[in-house]
């Protein structure tokens, strides 16, 4: 069996797809933000590997082809950004400034916690890109010497949490402006937060998806600066 999995060109891809699909089914059935298909897909994949004692390396010998698609998919994020460009132009300064401020606060808060908990450099940079989209956050963590798998986990937990608490937090802070709501969701909780922003309204959704890539790009630059602090 082990030889089959290690030699297969598709096993890891099929396993990941099936686990993700089960997540989609559960999401449909229970319609709760905890039922995030990606979260369930990851948990089920890990459970499968543990239960059947499959080495991660053997699984990844074929699953890596899924990861291979990530770079062109990240480049493709330029397309939705381009399609939202008109909205961006209208309030250009206010939008960019808000996302910039949100990103700086995100990095600064992580720095403070890293100092409080005494994180090592590697642990610190693992969490630096936790509020941005997985595709960009993962590569930042890798470039700066973080632990990629933990970054991905932190990013997904952030997204799900943002999705769940979003409406209450914005209400609590008396944020009612649809543009501000969208920017807050996208800057703090990337794509999973954007799913919630889209439920709030069209402007919220568009602003949130705009924030995903913009916050990602700003973080690429600023994370390199912040990485020098620990």
């Amino acid at each position: 069996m082990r030889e089959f999995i290690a030699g297969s060109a598709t096993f890891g891809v099929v396993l990941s797809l099936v686990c993700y699909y089960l997540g989609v089914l559960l999401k449909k059935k229970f319609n709760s933000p905890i039922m995030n298909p990606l979260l369930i897909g990851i948990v089920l994949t890990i459970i499968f590997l543990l239960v059947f004692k499959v080495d991660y390396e053997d699984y990844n010998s074929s699953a890596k082809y899924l990861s291979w698609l990530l770079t062109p998919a990240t480049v493709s994020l330029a397309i939705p950004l381009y399609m939202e460009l008109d909205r961006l132009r209208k309030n250009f300064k206010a939008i960019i400034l808000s996302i910039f401020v949100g990103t700086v606060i995100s990095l600064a808060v992580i720095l403070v916690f890293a100092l409080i908990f005494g994180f090592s450099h590697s642990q610190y940079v693992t969490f630096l890109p936790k509020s941005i989209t997985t595709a960009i956050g993962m590569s930042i963590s890798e470039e700066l010497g973080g632990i990629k798998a933990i970054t991905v986990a932190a990013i997904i937990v952030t997204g799900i949490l943002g999705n769940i608490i979003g409406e209450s937090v914005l209400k609590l802070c008396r944020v009612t402006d649809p543009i501000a709501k969208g920017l807050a969701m996208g800057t703090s909780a990337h794509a999973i937060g954007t799913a919630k922003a889209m439920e709030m309204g069209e402007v919220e959704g568009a602003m949130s998806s705009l924030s995903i890539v913009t916050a990602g790009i700003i973080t690429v630059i600023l994370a390199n600066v912040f990485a020098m602090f620990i």
Partner: protein
Amino acid sequence: MKYLKQFGIILLVTCIGELLRFIIPLPIPGSIYGLVLMLALLIGKVLKLEDVKDTAQFLIAIMPVMFIPAAAGLINSWPDLQPILIPALVTTAVSTFIVMAATGIFAQKIMHRSSKEENNHA
């Protein structure tokens, strides 16, 4: 032919992004160079939206699945995560809350100010 062309263009831009990553000595992922280059090509009308749109949207739609292999790597990274599990959760949760609240409040203040200015001009 349409999908081949679109995928070809996306891969070409991705490849140039990797080349830039190779040449420029900065810790910036190649995918980001590719993303910015793709945006520039679209804005500069070198590429039309139709040249890449369908394949790009397909890739973005299936993107969540692409994170599973990396995240399943937690199996190997567990010894690194376990000793900092509680600090990691606290950092993740509290920062999410603060960033969301701060961004929302700041954006709302600044939007109000800019719309007031517009009214004053009018």
